[in-house]
């Protein structure tokens, strides 16, 4: 058997205790290599700097570019029995398929990105437009990430959610204006979720487009809440994938690991400690209602409401706009 596999992933997805069950069951050690950014992961694969990773972690909405770049190995889904328990939304997604119709990545962990806010200061539940409201000048923050920030601005200026990731050049120009107008209202753009947690904790920011992490971290210490804007909730989803260059002898173990990520052990530990849900329904019914609510699996329709951030065709134009906004 393979003595060790290296899993490149987010530290929140891969605490050492999340994988002990796998190690016990297979005798293979899982070495964690934490990502510093999605882009760094892609660049590492692209430059060959990732040759020592055995399993990688593309996000659902970026999987396509890994596939197009030929960085991933086509997967034999028959080797992952737990796929059977996967929620349909994830089963159905086309984003993990190549032009050849083969599947290259398996979604395994998901969540939603709410607005986290100080409920003592925002007496009304914020919407995306709150993030553009001069009343809160100097207390707001956006993520330094073109895809989500531009889509939010689009929603704010009234573009319907179906088209939020499919903007025309004219619409992009409008969005850009809104984002530039928003700049003076912002305290800062946040870079990482730890960063934002700190900003909220220190009172610098009272409402921001966020992940759930600050809420979990701060809810016992100050009045914070999560808002899931009606205009459209941004979801996220991380995938399992195997680099195209993985040596033959490790592939079997990699499949076993994929199956583990969709299995019960991983799902229950991460639900318990990290407040995340996997893409598998395997343990959902065994969870308490409170826990179900906490990880958003109490009402599965939430998945229908998700806006899956998706790199648009004219993504480079988006990036340009975003860079122009930041440099403005």
């Amino acid at each position, binding site marked *: 058997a393979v003595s060790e596999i290296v899993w490149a992933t987010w530290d929140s997805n891969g605490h050492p205790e999340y994988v002990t069950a796998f190690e016990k069951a297979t005798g293979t050690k899982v070495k964690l290599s934490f990502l510093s*950014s999605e882009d760094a992961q892609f660049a590492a694969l*692209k430059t060959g700097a990732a040759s020592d990773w055995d399993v990688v972690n593309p996000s659902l909405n970026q999987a396509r570019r890994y596939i*197009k770049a030929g960085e991933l190995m086509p997967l034999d889904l028959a080797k992952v029995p737990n796929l059977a328990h996967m929620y349909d939304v994830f089963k159905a997604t086309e984003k993990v398929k190549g032009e050849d119709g083969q599947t290259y990545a398996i979604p395994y962990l998901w969540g939603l990105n709410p607005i986290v806010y100080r409920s003592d200061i925002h007496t009304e539940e914020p919407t995306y437009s709150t993030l553009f409201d001069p009343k809160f000048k100097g207390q707001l923050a956006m993520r330094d990430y073109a895809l989500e920030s531009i889509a939010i601005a689009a929603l704010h200026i009234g573009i319907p959610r179906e088209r939020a990731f499919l903007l025309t050049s004219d619409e992009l120009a409008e969005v850009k204006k809104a984002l530039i107008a928003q700049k003076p209202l912002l305290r800062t753009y946040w*870079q990482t979720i730890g960063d934002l947690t700190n900003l909220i904790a220190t009172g*610098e920011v009272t409402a921001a487009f966020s992940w759930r992490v600050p809420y979990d971290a701060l809810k016992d210490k100050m009045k914070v809440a999560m808002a899931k804007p009606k205009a459209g909730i941004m979801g996220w989803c991380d995938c399992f994938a195997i680099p195209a260059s993985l040596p033959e002898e490790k592939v079997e173990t990699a499949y076993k690991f994929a199956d583990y990520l969709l299995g019960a052990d991983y799902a229950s530990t991460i639900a318990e400690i990290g407040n995340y849900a996997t893409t598998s329904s395997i343990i959902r019914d065994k969870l308490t209602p409170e826990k179900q609510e906490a990880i958003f699996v109490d009402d599965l329709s939430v998945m229908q409401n998700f806006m899956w951030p998706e790199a648009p065709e004219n993504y480079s134009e988006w*990036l340009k706009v975003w*860079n*122009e906004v930041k*440099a403005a």
Partner: protein
Amino acid sequence: MTFRQRHLALPVAVAIVAGCLAPLAVLVAFSFYEVEDFDLIPAFSFRAWGELATSGTDWFLIGKAVLSGLTTTVFTTILGYPVALALTRLAASAKGLAIIVLLTPLYTGEIVRIYAWRIVLGGEGLVNTVLQGIGLIDEPLKFLLFSPFTIGLVLTYNNLPFMVLAIWVSAEMVDRRLIEAARDLGARPIDAFSRVVFPLTTPGLAAGSLTVFALSAGELLTPSLLGGTSGATAMALVDNLFGTAFDWPLASALALALLATLFLVASAMAGLLLRLKGARAVIGRT
């Protein structure tokens, strides 16, 4: 051929050519490529350079890098000289300790230090709390954090030790008797500084300036985490183009343009400093 001192340049040059120029050559090549579907296509295309040439944002950020490098250099020079000169006055036995004390702050990881600054400068932070406590201000000073001021302050902080170190080692070489001679001839300490110590330490100042300029023009984390909405940098843009946008040709072109610009400014700066009346005679001696 017998060995000569100048031949020591050879291994160093080889290291730089192999480790730095060769990779740069790769970038030059990339800058003429095309990208299609996340794939680099070798094509002799001027697309990236054309885009760069017409991009206001890119040049704005390159200019900002230069400006940031220069202002940090100026601030660290102004603060660095008194500290470096004070260090030369320490007893020889205290100097080893001094170098450790001076450099230790830099051993802390940058990220952790950045968060320490947030605590110091934040709206509910140390400075504001103290100022409010003693009644000097009513409202917290918001500009302390997430502003160009913050970037300037922290870049100065991050680079001050390098500048001090460079000026210091250079100032140690200034014969104290020359300062005495200047004082004897009527120079106040400030005159002795400007007319004797400064010219004789220009090599150190040049070394420090290059260091600080290079480091601060290339800073990414501090501006982006402490600069608020004014924290955009050319470095971050290069990263963004490489990673997020996967526009390697444009990223390469921008990186090369940035390098060339910084290079020009740095050479001009070094040239200027070393051409100062005094430095030339000093250096001519070698």
